[in-house]
């Protein structure tokens, strides 16, 4: 594993890291028990990288992603995104950071049920600085024909693609996806992964994807394995596979 990581990287390694984390720790209090979600994580992510986070439930993947995405703050340690010191930011700064730089995709889509596909995407274009048109983003994810459908009228895969369109429409610097295929069947899951890969490749958006599914790791530039709140392994696939090439 160590040998693999020393292999010269084919891609964005020469660029400056967008994310830099040192000694990230996160402790939750659940009633009377303390949960150590992260126990000192060091990390650097480079612009345009496609990073997959693998690990069992409770390994700290979501916590790490949430902190990188400005949804949460660490209990100890430092994390910065370019010039933004996320670990010291207050809620207002984190909100601005999310608004300007981050696109999220969640396992359960988190669409607003009372808004159509187009309107869910417009929710972001209304507050972003130089977004694409909502229609363009939906076209991108292959939903150009279903603009005016409500979430309840869309399949799970379609809903997830709306969520991706909503995430990328603002041309974010990073796309953070938490189990984007977790609630989807095989075919639909692959369709969603294709979209994510295309965004990473065509728009140069840094992408981080959490998954249980080791097969997806083949698509990544780099794979980080988490266990018990720490990074326990890092691999770089020899050849970056396309979603069509992977199967599980």
């Amino acid at each position: 594993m160590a040998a693999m990581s020393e292999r010269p990287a084919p891609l964005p390694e020469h660029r400056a890291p967008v994310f830099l984390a040192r000694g990230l720790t996160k402790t939750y209090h659940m009633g009377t028990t303390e949960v150590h979600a992260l126990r000192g994580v060091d990390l650097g992510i480079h612009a345009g990288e496609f990073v997959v986070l693998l690990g069992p439930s409770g390994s700290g993947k979501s916590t790490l992603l949430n902190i990188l995405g400005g949804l949460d703050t660490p209990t100890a340690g430092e994390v910065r995104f370019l010039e933004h010191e996320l670990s010291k930011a207050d809620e207002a700064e984190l909100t601005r950071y999310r608004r300007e730089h981050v696109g999220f995709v969640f396992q359960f889509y988190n669409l607003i049920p009372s808004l159509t596909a187009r309107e869910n995407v417009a929710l972001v274009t209304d507050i972003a600085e130089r977004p694409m048109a909502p229609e363009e983003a939906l076209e991108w994810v292959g939903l150009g024909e279903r603009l005016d459908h409500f979430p309840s009228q869309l399949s799970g895969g379609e809903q997830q693609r709306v969520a991706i369109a909503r995430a990328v429409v603002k041309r974010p610097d990073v796309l953070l996806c938490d189990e984007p295929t977790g609630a989807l069947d095989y075919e639909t899951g692959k369709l969603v992964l294709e979209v994510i890969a295309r965004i990473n490749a065509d728009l140069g958006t840094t992408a981080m994807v959490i998954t249980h599914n080791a097969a997806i790791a083949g698509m990544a530039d780099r794979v980080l394995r988490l266990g018990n709140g720490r990074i326990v392994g890092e691999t770089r696939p020899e050849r970056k596979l396309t979603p069509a090439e992977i199967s599980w």
Partner: protein
Amino acid sequence: MKAIDRKLLRDLWSLKTQVVSIALVIVCGIGGFIASFSTHDSLVWSREHYYDTARFPHIFATAKRAPLALVEKIRAIPGVSEVETRVVRDAQLSLEGVVPPMIARLIGVDFARPPGMSRLTLKSGRWPVPGMAGEAVVNQRFLEARRLKLGVRAQVLINGKLERLTIVGTALSPEYIYATRGGGMPDDEWFGVLWVDAKALAAGFNMEGAFNSVLLRLAHGASTGAAVDALDRLLEPYGGFGAVGREDQVSHKIVSQEINQQRVFGLVLPSIFLLVAAFILNVVLHRQVNAQRGEIAALKALGYEDRAIAWHYLKLASVIVLIGAAIGIGLGWRLGRAMTGLYTDFFHFPQFYFRLLPWVVLAGCGAALAAAFGGALAAIRNIVRLRAAEALRPPAPAEFRPLLVERLGYARIFTPGQRMILRNLERTPVRAALTIAGIAGSVAILLSGTFWVDAVEYFIDVQFNQVQRANVFVGFAEPVAHTARNDLAHLPGVARAETWRAIPVRLVAGHRHYRTALTGLADDANLQRIIDRDLRGSKPVPGGVLLTTRLANRLGVVPGDTLVAEMLEGKRIKAEVRVAGTVRELAGMNAYMRLEDLNLLAREGPVVSVAGLRVDRGEEPRLLERLKEVPAAAVVIVTRTLLETFRATSAKNILFFTAILTGFAATIAIGVVYNNARIQLAERAWELASLRVLGFTRGEVSVLLLGELALEIAAAIPLGCVAGYWLSWFIISLMQHGEVMEFPLMILPDTYLYAAAVVVAAGIVSALIVRNRIDNLDLVAVLKTRE
């Protein structure tokens, strides 16, 4: 339109039944508030406007006979700007076609020159021809009460001589908005005010070159008290009866009391309603926003600022409030106009004035908006405070624990379903308490609006069955020998006759004084009794005077104190009397003595001035016919018509008001219960659908949800009854400033039942609607997503 605003509109649409029910609560709160405040304000304004244009005097005084030369001295009293003198006399009146005798107040007017004060407004017919005796205008209310037509002939007894008069018109006077001869209640049927030619009246009563009534207007800022005292000193040698300011002028006093009563209903009840509506709105919006936790989290993750999210939900609250306010203002305005119109007719104000002051609208809407914002913000603050990551997760499973009864070892008395209901209640005590408080609040306002029927009926029972037990009262023009009792007892149909003495009197204690009648009752009096509000009977005490508690308070005296009784008829004796006791009567400002004591005090023999007769039903017409032939009988009053008058005036106003408020209270109750059911469904839909997936039937699942609501309603009803009792007590105690009567706090079991039934009915209707939604829960959706 921004996407987030579209969300607002769609949310409003999908919540439409709840939006409507919350808006209705606001409609009732704001509508009642605006209707009542505008009515009260318009009435005060109308009265002031009427007083201004009709030049209502500031001071009123009567004397036996004062020379016109005194006018210059009166004019010289500091602060007096205008003086008007006239002749006013009461006389026996009979009308063609009307059997019992009545009393006319004859007021001399020079119809060629309109009076400078207490100007008349002609309502129908014409003015009498100036200088022509034999024509009169009468007060509008008398004509209406007697259902007379213009042109009717009247006869009045002037100095022992019958004079004929023709009624040629009706008029309104600011002095006789309420016409009464001194009693607390208007007696429009028995007491008519007739304005007649001044010269003829003066000649008839030998009052040429003299006056017995004087009206004063004061310069702005002048002291009423000082002018009253000065006028009293001037009139003293001429048999002055004591001058009074506006606050003691009988008509003004009753009008003010009616308006004041209206204020209590109009200001206090709607304010309480608005508060309850505001509270409910607060609770409902709090829970509504809580139910959208997931969507708020998603907005946060997308980069929406806390402020923007808060503003989004405040807009939701504002739209609901604005819908409610728009309808509420419209409804309040219409109702206010209608009520002001009714009162204007009732008071016979010559002109209709209605206004809705901007501050009333602003206060009503502001209170509703503040309550809505408070509720929404409290909920938003809790969610926004969460880190976005935390808000995205469903709330951690709440910590449940066995119920207290289970911990005590009685676990087996409940089924698992019942335990779920009870644990849920126990786990969220604040939420359960708020729900219960909301429902209890609506029970309380229902009670406080409805119990008036009981109070009024109780009042009527006490006053007309316990206190005044005669069906016919006879007033004598002059005191007669007490043997009149035997003569009356032998009249046809009379089962029992009693007589007593009533002397008009001014009671003085230090600088306080009050005009009333001193009543001397026989020891065996049974047709006119002294009954306190708890139905305990009292008797006058030997050697002293027994006062209605309100009168004692007004005079600032307690038992043992001494006061001066200045008698205003007969020998006009001034005598000191000891206050022997007080009695908490529901009506009147009465002073009682034993008949013998009073006769002794007045230095008269055994005389009486009033008789009460108990008459067999059906014999009444024959008796009235016979009474017409009894020359001493100046006035005959049938209590049945007094009761009718009371029902048509005070009682009608109170009940009209409370009917409207009860409607509002019922609407609020339905709004509360329905919203609670809907929110509970929204909060627990996922859990209930999961149970359905596990194989629970629709019925079983419904019981879980509605069981909680049923328990909350069951807990709220007794609490609401207690709260309603105290709320009613509070409202009643605010009304006790009224002089003439006080209402007892009387709530019958039926009224409690009615309030409970309205809330239970609201619960059943809500349950049916919610049950329908439970039946249509989307089970598949539940399996797919977690929230």
